[in-house]
């Protein structure tokens, strides 16, 4: 199971993607963890790039979870969030 925090671009141009936080749990670690319970993790987000919704370009931040099943299948889920400057929230 892979957990990552990343930003990626959408829009006219080709996609750019940069992973900020990455965590991978192997089969042995997954057996130890109780996956039915919450699995908290923490990361300190950078000051940039901020989330952006432009005309040619959009910058999205997300937490992405990728699960590799035993049969070789793969599941992916992501949750978008907005990274803003602290000043902008006041």
């Amino acid at each position, binding site marked *: 199971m892979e957990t990552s925090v990343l930003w990626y*671009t959408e829009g006219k*141009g*080709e996609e750019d993607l940069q992973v900020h936080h990455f965590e991978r749990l192997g089969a042995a670690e997954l057996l130890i963890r109780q996956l039915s319970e919450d699995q908290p993790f923490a990361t300190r987000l950078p000051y*940039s790039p901020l989330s952006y919704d432009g*005309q*040619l370009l959009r910058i999205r931040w997300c937490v992405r979870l990728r699960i590799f099943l035993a049969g070789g299948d793969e599941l992916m889920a992501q949750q978008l969030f907005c990274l803003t400057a602290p000043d902008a929230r006041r």
Partner: protein
Amino acid sequence: MRLPKPWSKKRGKRIAGRAFSGTVGEAVFFAVLFLVGVFTLALTVAQRWVPVSALVLPTGLGFWILIVLSLALVVTGGVALAFGILQIGASSERRSALARRAGELELIRPSLADGSVLPTVPRGANLTDSPGMRLAYRLPSTGWPGWRLASAAVLALMWNGGWLVLLVVVITGFQQGRPRWVLTGLLLPFAGVGVWAFRYFLARFREMSGLGATIVEISEHPLLPGHDYQGYVAQFGRMHLRKLQVELICEEESTYRQGTDLRVEKKTIRCEKVLLDRGVTIDRQHPWEREFALKVPSDSMHSFRSPHNAVRWKVVVTGEARPWPSFCQSFPVVVQPGSTPPRRSPR
């Protein structure tokens, strides 16, 4: 009206003649030198390899001397003309900014800054290494407005050089007693095109001579959204402008593939007019100078750069002129995110 004098008395370090006449005279001189070189080179080569009954030029050691001299004329004329074009309307500051253009690639490509506290935000280090006269920083400009002039020079020289080669072919034909009448007839309209190309080049040359350097200075850098800054702009040269304006522009840039082509699309998403002046007259002694207030809107996106996408900010100085061509000079700036990381204390 003062008539142009081919010579003038030198008085110490003062320039007694007109710099403009000197610049145009130099350009014409080196262009003629280039064309004479092409003509003699073509004539010498033709004498060597085209059999003629009466040789007018030597074919021994003198042949090689003529080849070397002709090549020297071509190289001297061409290089001096190209160098002269590069010097037109460029102050030493502007030339220095042009020389630093390689550094501006940092605004396009990812650099070491990506590992810093502000990932994907250009550092803009090369934007602050030149102190200003009025304000803290003098911004370097991008682009060179002399491309039209350089293109006109290449067109005029290539066309007229080719015409001279054809002239040599026609002369050789007459010497052999086999005149090429069709080619001889074509020489006249070709000469007309050559004269037009040369006059076009001279007109662009005069225009560029009138357009001087543009200077933009700024009180602080990098910029932050919602903050106010002071700016200073100066336009040098000798011209009358209908309109001269300064804008703060933000544009998005995206690179994408379409088939086998790599395309770049740009879109201006924000344009803040910070200064507008109409009916501006500029002469050598009185450049146009203004101070202005610059405010980056608080809801603005910061400068951003990734391999295929970018958000760029720039101060743009635009002039609408007659009979001179309109011009547009860009001065990139970096806008950082609204909340910047705390400065690291050396303690």
